[in-house]
């Protein structure tokens, strides 16, 4: 489902070419590493790379540099002037039925990366039939952010723990669709996962070794994903 991102400005400057390209700027939310979330930038970037590889509906973003170093810019959806609201808890059921495929994908992905803080971090449209939007955002509590210590996060991901104890779509997703996304993730080539996690250079405080260890933990986790999710079927699947 391709999404529209917010254009802040279209500049007069145009570039040569038959498509008449022009310069513009998009709206984005800048995210930084902080004491509370020391690996936010890396986790956001890698979660996006994994999601794009697996075709999980999450908001796009880019790595950028500010005065305090590298930051993650999460691109904003919507029209100029007004942003879509974040999902409210009474909307979870509607979202899961309106976007059944996407909701199942997001549940499995969140379990895969250990993102225990999905909460309301979803933008979706319900009354705009010609513009279906469903996108998750905010992944700083997944991957290296599962625990405050990154080594513990890696260990936990590799230990095949569910991690995600609560999720807006638990109890609302079809088991068949969940199985489909589990299969997709578990069949993903290890090399693809490594390419998503290993940036071939340190990113802020995240060393090359930490990146390699995370990749290894995720490669292990995907193999056991089916078992892990089956063990928690009662919690995850919807009941008629």
């Amino acid at each position, binding site marked *: 489902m391709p999404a529209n991102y917010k254009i802040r400005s279209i500049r007069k400057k145009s570039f040569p070419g038959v498509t008449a390209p022009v310069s513009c700027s998009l709206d984005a939310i800048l995210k930084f590493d902080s004491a509370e979330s020391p690996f936010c930038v890396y986790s956001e970037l890698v979660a996006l790379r994994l999601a794009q590889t697996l075709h999980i509906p999450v908001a796009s973003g880019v790595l950028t540099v500010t005065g305090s170093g590298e930051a993650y810019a999460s691109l904003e959806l919507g029209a*100029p*002037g*007004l*942003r879509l*609201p*974040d999902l409210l808890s009474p*909307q979870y059921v509607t979202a899961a039925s309106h976007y059944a495929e996407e909701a199942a994908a997001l549940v499995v992905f969140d379990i895969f990366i250990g993102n225990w803080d999905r909460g309301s971090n979803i933008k979706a449209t319900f*009354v*705009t039939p*010609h513009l279906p939007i469903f996108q998750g955002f905010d992944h700083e509590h997944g991957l290296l952010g599962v625990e405050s210590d990154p080594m513990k996060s890696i260990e936990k991901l590799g230990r095949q723990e569910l991690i995600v104890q609560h999720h807006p779509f638990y109890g609302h997703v079809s088991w068949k669709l969940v199985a489909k996304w589990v299969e997709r993730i578990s069949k993903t080539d290890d090399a693809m996962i490594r390419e998503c996690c290993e940036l071939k250079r340190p990113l802020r405080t995240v060393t090359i070794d930490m990146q390699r260890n995370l990749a290894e933990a995720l490669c292990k986790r995907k193999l056991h994903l089916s078992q892990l999710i089956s063990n928690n079927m009662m919690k995850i699947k919807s009941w008629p």
Partner: protein
Amino acid sequence: MALSLRFHVVQYVDDPVLAEGRNVAVLAYYGGRGHYRALGMDGYRLISSHFKSLSPKARDSVWVYREWAEWFRSLANVREVEQFDKAIARLAAHNSGLVATSEGVVELTEGYGDVSGALDYLFKRLVRLPKITPALEFEDQLEATFNQTEILYGGNFLDEPVEVEMVAENDRKTVITLEFSHLFTAEFARQFVTDVPIGFNTLVLQGSTAKSLDRQIARNITIFKNAVLTGFLQPDRCVLLCGRIEEKHREMLAQLSGIATVMDVFDQSTPSKIRKLVWPHS
């Protein structure tokens, strides 16, 4: 004993740099559920013109405001006060264009009656209703008409302008501009729905000068004539939707006779006429 009602005013911030807000909604939690009053919301109906009239930028993002209207409705289903407070905190912290301002408290005395009465009072005092131009009133009615026909939900209805380039028999290329259209039906629905395209254009009668009306009518005549000439539309599938036809308009609109079907969106029979065009067999 007087009870207190905590409420939050929601502002629409058009320009984040200027950070000047316009009050658009009042939210409160009371009696185990959320309550709201929001600009343009009348029960399950949203009168889009109220939000559109705030600014040109608001006009462009009215579809997002419709999603916010859904959000306000869902807020009424929030049962836990913690969930309500969390939603308000996100509204205050995230610069989403709609921002929750600081909390206020009113006493629910006999004067206000119940929560509903207090919210009505607060909304009236805090949210200024915009002046609605005839053009915006027409747009509201147009939206309501399309909603009633239900063609909005068909998947092959385009509620945005389209340009179709067609070639007539004389090899001349013609661009047909339609404001709304019902194009090419999905295969499975062919037996129930016409697969002949329908083109809709609009004409705002109220608030327009005679000169402007003449120009708009001439333009529509050209568009619909070309649409038929190129074979893109059939004459009975050319529809001009206009607002409140008065006696003084009749002569002007007579020019469209045989070229397009003129329908008044304020006429109660218009939705069923459109439905018959789309679903002739139903």
